[in-house]
């Protein structure tokens, strides 16, 4: 259900026109197709109801209860939500996730776009570079890479060894509350390959004639870039932005592994999802955890809606 960092690129095309029914006996044909369609959709419909919709409602209901899995849920009204307001760790985790999303997503997409632009212009060996830059995206979400990161940024790790050779005294990146989150932001930026591949696919869809026409009209590289490349790429930028923002909100593995599940040092890597995990599966405070989860759902929903609203002002659709 979550979108991994390495999502294969897909492009959203304009909505399909309703299909012309193959069977021209309109009413009967449609009825037959409706029955067939529901047979095809049966697994999905069951999943939608049993695995998604009902649990969502149950989770909403639980968020108004006190429930520790052993006792029966006890209705406590909005107490869980009021508790959040006074819960310093709730605010800390919201801040940590907020910083992570706001810094790591633009950084990652910036790298992705820059590299896509460099690779796009008829460069030989494109496939090799693309693969090399894409590999971290495939691995970045794994426990193994989080373990690797923990070693790299450890006191005796690769980063400090590298710094030492150029005469800089390294620090204990993961033990220092000021730098621990930064290492995870670097990790996310490192996985820029997946959005880069999507940018490359988008760049290749821009008709070459537009650039030729612009050159004939005397437009230089920068004007071609500002007036052709960027506008025509905005739908892809938007697509990547939505995908990576939602993904960053749900980041969990890296923080869990690097901090040993604590979110430390001093809660500096306490991602919001890690806090939900601690409340639900360490403290078994299912009611409060459900309330936290619903707040996350609402925030992601609001931010996605905001993205779509704002997209009217900067995303260029149409010919």
């Amino acid at each position, binding site marked *: 259900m979550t979108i991994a960092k390495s999502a294969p690129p897909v492009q959203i095309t304009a909505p399909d026109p309703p299909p012309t029914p193959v069977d021209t006996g309109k009413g009967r044909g449609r009825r037959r197709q409706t029955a067939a369609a529901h047979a095809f959709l049966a697994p*999905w419909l069951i999943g939608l109801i049993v695995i998604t919709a009902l649990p969502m409602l149950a989770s909403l209901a639980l968020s108004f209860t006190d429930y520790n899995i052993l006792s029966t849920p006890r209705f406590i009204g909005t107490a869980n939500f009021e508790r959040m307001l006074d819960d310093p760790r709730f605010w800390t985790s919201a801040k940590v996730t907020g910083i992570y999303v706001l810094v790591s997503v633009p950084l990652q997409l910036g790298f992705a776009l820059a590299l896509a632009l460099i690779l796009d212009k008829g460069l030989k060996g494109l496939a090799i570079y693309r693969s090399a830059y894409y590999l971290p995206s495939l691995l970045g979400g794994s426990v193994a890479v989080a373990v690797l990161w923990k070693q790299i940024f450890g006191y005796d790790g690769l980063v400090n060894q590298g710094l030492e050779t150029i005469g800089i005294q390294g620090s204990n990146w993961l033990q220092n509350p000021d730098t621990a989150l930064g290492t995870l932001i670097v990790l996310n930026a490192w996985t820029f390959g997946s959005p880069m591949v999507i940018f490359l696919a988008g760049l290749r869809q821009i008709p070459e004639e537009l650039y030729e026409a612009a050159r004939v009209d005397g437009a230089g590289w920068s004007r071609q870039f500002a007036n052709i490349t960027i506008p025509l790429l905005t739908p892809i930028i938007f697509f990547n932005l939505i995908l990576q923002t939602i993904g960053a909100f749900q980041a969990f593995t890296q923080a869990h592994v690097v901090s040993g599940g604590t979110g430390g040092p001093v809660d500096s890597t306490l991602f919001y999802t890690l806090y939900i995990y601690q409340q639900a599966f360490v403290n078994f405070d299912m009611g409060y955890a459900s309330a936290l989860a*619903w707040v996350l759902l609402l925030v992601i929903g609001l931010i996605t809606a905001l993205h779509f609203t704002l997209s009217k002002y900067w995303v260029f659709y149409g010919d």
Partner: protein
Amino acid sequence: MSTLTDSTTSTSALAPRHISVSVRRSRLRGALVRHGALTLFGLFMLYPLIWMLVSAFKPSHLVLTDPGIIPTELTLENFRNGWVVGGFPFWVFFGNSLVVAISAIVGNLFSCSLAAFALARLDFRARNIYFAIVLVSVMLPMHAVIIPQYIVFSNLGLVNTFVPLILPKFLATDAFFVFLMVQFIRGIPRTLDEAACIDGAGPFRTFWFVILPLMRPALITTTIFTFIWTWNDFFGQLIYLTDSSVFTVPVALNALVDSQSNQGTGTLLAMSLLSLLPILLFFAFAQKYLIQGIATTGLK
């Protein structure tokens, strides 16, 4: 190195004959600079992975003292030290991960292709609503449903089994793949369905004999990404698998980190490397299909 020579030949081949030698030379220099920078950047990007590869085979006392990637001594000691976690050898965890991943692949191929065919090709009233639901559920965070799911599976006695990880895949809950397949099917000419219909084929036969064979690239993309996502998945597996006999690779690796006091960096890196091996193999082996998948789904 080979990329460098490639670029030189291509630049000169592209350059029309009347362009002067100096212009051609400066273009060549530009290409060389660009390739040099891109190669350096690539090495910088991949250096952590190369370091992991080399360190896994280094004696533990050298791992943290020698940042170089040319090993002076090779050993399998690290793999031996990390092989047993919680009383079980690592191949058990590989077996468990493989069972989960393969089941997830079968489940996704089955349920998502059926749903996608109906949404892309059949005419029924709720079609647009259903498709909108698919799009929205792509963005739905799993945290909104995981707690009640856990409570239900736990009451059914299914914690420490693979059922909670596999069952949802047979019910098309990876909406992303439904979406991907719908987009792919829309690119298949409708005349093929119509021909099948004229020959008397109903929706099921059209799906099985016409659409499904043509969906091969989308099915391969789904297989690859389901494998990689399932192999890397941690949250779900961490919650549902608490007994070391059913640990998957990521959960076992996490347990190894937690018991780190007596494990060295070399051991952790060796087991991390081992856990990534299937993905690296998939990456090497499935390159062609990855690119194909990108070309057919991304470049419609």
